[in-house]
């Protein structure tokens, strides 16, 4: 009995570790929020525009989810100066919503790409 319980716990632990934090991302909502806030004017999913592609961003923060979340959230909520792909700098667009759940969903979607 002890063996069974301990093996179940181990299995649960392993499964939890390999499940990404963004498993429950609402892609449509994230895409809609990004569209509404003109994010796609500077970013694309897999094409470099004025800003890096979202896939490039996801790749940059692969395995560093917390760091990625913090960096993206900072960019879209505070509008710091960011370096564009052509080397120039400009202020990042600030997202219009204050809904933290929506913002997190968008950030998770970007990191999930």
């Amino acid at each position, binding site marked *: 009995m002890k063996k069974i319980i301990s093996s179940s716990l181990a299995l649960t632990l392993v499964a939890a570790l390999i499940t990404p934090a963004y498993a429950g991302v609402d*892609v449509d909502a994230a895409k809609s929020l990004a569209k509404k806030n003109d994010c796609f004017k500077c970013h694309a999913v897999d094409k470099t525009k004025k800003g890096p592609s979202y896939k490039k961003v996801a790749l940059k923060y692969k395995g560093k989810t917390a760091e990625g979340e913090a960096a993206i959230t900072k960019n879209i909520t505070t509008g710091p100066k960011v370096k564009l792909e052509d080397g120039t700098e400009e202020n990042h667009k600030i997202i219009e919503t204050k809904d933290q759940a929506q913002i997190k969903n968008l950030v998770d979607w970007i990191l999930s790409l």
Partner: protein
Amino acid sequence: MNSKIKAVTLSALVAVCMIAGNVLAAEGRDMGKAIAKMYLSEAGATEIQVQPAGEVGAEAPSGNKDIVLKGDAKCTACHDEADSPKVLSIGKTSHGVKGDARTPTCTSCHGESDAHIAYKGSAKPPKPDRVFGKNTATPVAERNRACLTCHKGTARTHWEGSQHQNAQVACSDCHTTHAPADKVLNKKTQREVCFACHKEQRADEHKISTHPIDAGKVACSDCHNPHGSTGPKLLKKNTVNETCFLCHAEKRGPFLWAHQPVVEECTICHTPHGSNITPLLKTRPPFMCQECHDGSHSSGTPVGPNAAGIQAGLTVAPNRNNVGGSCMNCHRQIHGSNSPAGGFLQR
């Protein structure tokens, strides 16, 4: 034993849930991959020349190359298939024919828009010089100037001073420039655009006697020129009759025996958009006829051929049995007769 089974079942369930979570996450990633494709297919823009997607980690800046029109790079650097694929579908319209030297570019219509392009702030950038949307601040005249710069003359010769111009109608109120199919240019869908404002005509179209507008056989522009006209009601021709005779040529004459209102104006008897009295009549016979012919059948007073009202000079006495009957039961050639004996428009 029971507790063993429960424990095994529980662990199996947990494992299944975790695996499902992973599958969903993978699906989420796949959906992300498909987003660019979705954007293109939504606008039917798959045929438009677009920048190929770069490999992750080996991306190079697009270099701001033109995507659809010559010189569009300054706009499509932001407004590309990722942002607004519907904008790019202009490549499927006559405004996207690159081989034609007259084909404009984005700035030909929207203006150079330097402030819009150069903006680097965190808020929304200022609008382009000319915006054509529904709630735009660009004045109608300014918007129309962008179109009339090229689209002048021919059917638009009389735009200045026309009813639509005086009513502050913009070209973009009826036309969609970026869409591959402009509703107002299609005979079957044009009515939807016109009826958005002309609601009385939309109601008329549902009466029992109409032109086959609903069936898509006749469009508003078959009779009207919305861009200006020398005739009344923005008609294509100078008069109502000239316009009607474009189709109803058999009623044009000249006739040996003419019916005067036919010569004067069709709308004396008919209403063009719809009526509950067929065929498109304004009033039901015999009352309509009696508005001019004041009762020769009921009075028995003889009248001469081609004469309205009580006239001197008789041929035959009108039969009183026909009082109240529909005049066109006997006077079948009501628009005019070429028969030598057709003075009463009966043959």
